[in-house]
């Protein structure tokens, strides 16, 4: 109701199209409640000014709930949504089912070639761009420079896992409530398994071999789990097995995590003096590697897509073009400064001198470019995806494996037990799902 009214108002504000506004198309847009999306909802006047005949209804929900609702709708052909916000995990799977509308025919000013290549690759199925990235992220290391200095160490911009281990040991001061390293421990395919899968990539481990045989019985995974559990039990915060993205971000903002490897998007929070008193002391580094050619950084893009069941595809495309166009970045910058522009989608953003002057800009783009969803591991794999395996069974399987690994972190299982269980479970599920013949 209010939105109609606002749409009419803004249509009238530009003057010309007051009467045309009556024949409007309503589109329902489902988004996650992240800061960048919320900001977009505040900038809608610009969209309505340019598209007076389209009215947008928002469904804003937290990530888990949104994913559930949108998946239910699209898989049952419900047709409730015209534009959905989905990630790089969903796009290849849904695309294969023909559930998403191709965006290849967006107008020329969309400038599809400006999209960052790894992001674009992750959202393209059979040559069709099926979702337009709204913001992209990788993962990197953030740390407190003052603590590193105090401990007399330097963390290189391009660190190895050895550097990270040493730094974690040197900066830990349990008495003062300072923990050397925070990594996600909470069970879930998007929580601890995102970190562990990228860590595995850098250790030369992989989820499956070329024949979809699970690889948890291989020495690489044992090395990954041993180091992960050791790092967190020695230098991590107590209770780490229950810390996810939010908990660790909070600890970092409070300065209690001396170092943390997590999403690049948290950079804007970490450098925001309104959120952290350590904002001016934050340093960043690329995710570490082992010298095997792959870094422990992921690739994710929250992207806008149109379900095939939508009955307002043209209006939806107009909206997506507006929200993910270069002009939108400029619009955000003009209102709230370049730091607020949604990161990680376009080459031109990083070519912009004002944006690239931001402390996290270069490392974000370097991290994104260091991730390759089509070739994520040291050894060959039959799947795409960096911190996930883009098959429908992955979310369920990885969540179960994540639970087993969180038990290992909590000390309820040994690393060997956990890996054996994970292997048995994966073999069973992959056999049931028909991957292993």
């Amino acid at each position, binding site marked *: 109701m209010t939105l109609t009214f606002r749409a009419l108002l803004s249509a009238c504000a530009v003057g010309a199209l007051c009467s045309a506004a009556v024949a409007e198309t309503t589109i329902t847009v489902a988004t996650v409640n992240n800061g960048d999306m919320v900001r977009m909802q505040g900038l809608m006047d610009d969209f309505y000014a340019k598209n007076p005949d389209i009215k947008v209804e928002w469904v804003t929900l937290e990530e888990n709930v949104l994913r*559930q609702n949108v*998946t*239910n709708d699209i*898989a*049952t052909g419900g047709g409730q949504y015209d534009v959905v916000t989905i990630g790089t995990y969903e796009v290849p*799977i*849904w695309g294969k*089912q023909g559930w998403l509308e191709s965006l290849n025919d967006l107008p020329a000013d969309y400038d599809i070639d400006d999209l960052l290549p790894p992001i674009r690759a992750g959202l393209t199925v059979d040559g069709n761009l099926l979702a337009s990235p709204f913001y992209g992220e990788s993962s990197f290391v953030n740390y407190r420079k003052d603590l590193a200095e105090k401990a007399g160490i330097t963390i290189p911009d391009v660190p190895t896992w050895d550097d990270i281990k040493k730094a974690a040991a040197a900066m830990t001061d349990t008495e003062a*409530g300072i923990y050397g390293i925070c990594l996600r421990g*909470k*069970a*879930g*395919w998007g*929580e601890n398994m995102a970190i562990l899968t990228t860590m595995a990539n850098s250790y030369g481990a992989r989820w499956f071999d070329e024949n979809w045989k699970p690889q948890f019985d291989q020495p690489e995974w044992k090395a990954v789990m041993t180091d992960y559990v050791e790092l967190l039990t020695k230098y991590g*915060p*107590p*209770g780490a*097995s*229950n810390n996810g993205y939010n*908990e660790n971000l*909070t*600890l970092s903002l*409070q300065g*209690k995590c001396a170092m943390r490897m997590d999403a690049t998007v948290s950079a804007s929070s970490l450098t925001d003096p309104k959120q952290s008193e350590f904002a001016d002391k934050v340093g960043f580094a690329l995710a570490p590697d082992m010298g095997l050619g792959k870094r422990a950084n992921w690739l994710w893009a929250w992207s806008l897509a149109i379900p095939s069941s939508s009955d307002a595809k043209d209006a939806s495309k107009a909206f997506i073009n507006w929200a993910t166009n270069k002009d939108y970045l400029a619009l955000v910058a003009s209102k709230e400064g370049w730091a607020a522009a949604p990161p990680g989608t376009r080459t031109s953003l990083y070519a912009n001198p004002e944006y690239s002057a931001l402390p996290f800009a270069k490392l974000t783009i370097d991290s994104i470019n260091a991730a390759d969803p089509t070739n994520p591991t040291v050894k060959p794999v039959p799947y795409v995806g960096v911190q996930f395996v883009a098959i*429908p*069974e992955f*979310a*369920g*399987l990885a*969540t*179960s494996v994540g*639970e*087993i690994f*969180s*038990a290992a*972190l*909590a000390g*309820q*299982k040994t690393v060997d037990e956990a890996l054996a*269980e994970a292997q048995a479970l994966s073999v069973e599920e992959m056999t*049931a*799902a*028909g991957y292993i013949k």
Partner: protein
Amino acid sequence: MSTQSSRATARLMVAPSVVLLFIWMIVPLILTVWFSFRIYRLLSPERNGWAGFRNYTWFFNSPDFWLGINNTLLLVGGVLAITIVFGVLIALLIDQPVWGQGPLRILVISPFFIMPPVAASIWENLFMHPQNGLLAAGAVGMGIKPILFLESYPMASVIFIVAWEWLPFATLILLTALQSLSSEQLEAAEMDGASSLSRFRYITLPHLTRAITVVILIQTIFLLGIFGEIFTTTQGGPGSASTTLPYMIYKQALIAKDIGRAAAGGIIAVILANIVAFFLMRSMGKHLDA
């Protein structure tokens, strides 16, 4: 005692509830039974067909299954024990003449006003978190190591949170029952020199029997289905330490998107609930019409 016509009228008065509830129950139940024998993965619709009993055997063979059943019963039993014992005590206490009875009662039932996911989130992040939680701060203030509630005692923590949410419900029902207790009877007993403990034992408690029965039965049915609080706080972990049957179903339905398995789990849960209800009714059903 009652006439033929009053029986017919009585039946007519029950009919709308029964018919509506029957439809509400049977349609989803039939669909669920149907799906439970199907291969139905939301994200791979091309793989479909009959699954036989495979969705059921998956549950029985799962290493978490018996643990899950155990935890489910533990959750129900634990929450019932806490809410009944404290519910009775608190109801007795706030039934006493005290100053500010009105506001007092609102405070006591206030947890009931909080949406369950929010309640769980508040407990997890603002109270039980080992670094930021208020309880941890209290522990540090007293010079002891903060307890890792959700890592070391996940099931107890979940039971505690759920009991906090349900305590008002029990208190409220027990309090209303308490207020119909005739004070003459208590006074007479007091005059006869009965101690307050024996007054409670022989007058108050028998009077509360039906209310307690109602609380147990209603809460049991609600508690048997709880998964939201677990998802928010422990995600069923660490490992499977706080996994319950409904949480296993939740994972299959909403994370793995395996509707066939979720449906089979639902049927298993209904059977379990019926077994529990059968024993409850046999042991305490007679109190209902006392």
